[in-house]
């Protein structure tokens, strides 16, 4: 993988923009197309691009498997936990009305939080799935290819 110089440079240049775009999609989901899921996928694509260019091992060094599983769990629990917070606020599950001083703002906050949860979970899960495939050694003869 060391001979694709242009690829490496371009990738390095693109990577921040991809991640930035992912963040934009994440936070702008309230106003335009996009949201946690799309952002998560784009974020994962960023990682995958990194892995394709620099090798999976490099990616695993940056985000080890344990971290990925942890991040997945954090994302999911952020979502589920928001609901639990509503329970403790005396409301039904996932009712965001009391997350802020008035119900409408509470909804906005709630949506933001759960979208963030989705984003983290999806980005981590997609990356984890990709890593699982990519680190599996091919058990395939060259003639097959």
């Amino acid at each position: 993988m060391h001979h694709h110089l242009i690829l490496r440079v371009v990738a390095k240049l693109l990577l921040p923009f991809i991640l930035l775009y992912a963040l934009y999609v994440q936070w702008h989901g309230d106003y335009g197309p996009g949201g946690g899921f799309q952002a998560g996928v784009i974020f994962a694509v960023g990682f995958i691009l990194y892995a394709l260019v620099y090798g999976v091992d490099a990616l695993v060094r940056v985000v080890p498997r344990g971290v990925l599983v942890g991040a997945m769990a954090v994302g999911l629990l952020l979502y589920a936990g928001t609901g639990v917070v509503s329970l403790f606020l005396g409301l039904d599950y996932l009712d965001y009305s009391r997350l802020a001083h008035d119900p409408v703002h509470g909804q906005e906050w709630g949506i933001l939080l759960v979208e963030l949860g989705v984003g983290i979970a999806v980005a981590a899960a997609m990356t984890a799935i990709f890593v699982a495939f990519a680190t599996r050694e091919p058990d395939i003869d060259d003639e097959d290819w």
Partner: protein
Amino acid sequence: MIPQAIISQLPILQVIVPLIAAPFCALLGGRNRAWALAFAVSLVTFAISAMLFASTLDGTVLSYQLGGWAPPIGIEYRVDALNAFVLLIVSGVGALTMLYARESVAYEIDERHHGLFYSAFVFCMTGLLGVTITGDAFNVFVFLEISSLSTYALVASGAKRDRRALTAAYNYLIMGTIGATFFVIGLGLLYMITGTLNMADLAHKLVEHGDSRTLRMGFAFIVVGFGLKLAMFPLHLWLPNAYTHAPSAVSAFVSATSTKVAVYLMLRFLFTVFGFSIPFEVDVLRTIVLPLALIGILAGSIVAVFQEDLKRLLAYSSISQIGYMLVGITLLTPGGLMASIIHLFNHAVAKAALFMVAGAYVMQAGTSTISDLRGVGRDMPFTTAAFVVGGLSLVGVPMTVGFISKWYLVQAALEQGWWPVAGLIVLSSLVAFAYVWRFVEAAYMYPTPDGVIRREAPLTMLIPMWIFAGSSIFFGLNASLTSAAASRAASGLIAASSLIWQ
């Protein structure tokens, strides 16, 4: 004793407790930690469903609005006698198989996989509970997929023992996904003509809508979709391999719960959602589902007689037992429905016990092939005795819960004057006896092969299997609780539909 605030939140806690615990199982890893958490959570879940069951037994219907949005805008959880009963079955089987899983999984799964395995296990339970409790048709799909995806993974993790688990899981995945997609198509058609996804609202709107070709096809697709999930003959092809090659604890759990939940969904949609407002529904049930169910009953039993592998034998028997439930449904009488619901319980309890026994053999004798298990009754007396009890319940011998359900079923068929159906049910019981007895005879009446040493299963496996076997007997002797629950559920279903039944 328990604050009212918690009581009113029970429906959501039922699902959310295992859902939140499952990721922690994945993080904990290591054998005992993940197991301990999973077991603890399953006990809590069982306690919750017991409370739900107790509070709905008198006919109360609990409604819970997720996100505080009133249905049909938001998603609703709706618990009545029927699904509280199913919840109780799912969580009860879940808790006991979790106890059983400790030794069995330690034997059948690599230790480094345990965290993920138990996580998937708890997710599977979460999905089934979520499907059962929800009152929103699309939410059914989402949670169905949670349970299905985790089931595929669980089945595939039997590959350590036999690589055929992989292909079994793959085929299950393909058929299961097609089934789920059919359901989505059917639901789409319903949505198109009603504009709602809430089951109660759907029922209401469908009555307003009247008959149409779109509705008919929506019905057909949903039935086929659930038919795939519940392994209705001839859509059962995924089942035998999946149950045979899955790890034992998974076989026990999945066989006892997932097809039952699919049967529940079938009931829910047939009665609550469609409610027999169009004659097409009755026609389909009577002319297509009933014959298929009858063929399934007989074919499943007969094929089971010729199986060499105990787990595969049990799997084919499941296909046949599912047929009984379907027959009970197609009778469209309170008696028939009651028979179906009791049989659902009976089969869950008996099959869980039987698959647990098979798993104990796999662990202690290293095989589930019948001919290799000769004389096992003397080496593992308690395990094998549990098999005898579960097997007799499957046959429907008196003093087992299987007898109760067959009694109601035959009675319901006779009330309708369906003599041939009653005859077939009885006949297939006899075939069931043949396959059960084939193993019992091998276990007791043949000498142990030379050089085979088998020890009795450990206590953590014996206890759950005997709780199931014991409840097979207990509820066979005293059917008042199950009868009451089933009759309450059946009358609820009939009342919700526009079936006119004298």
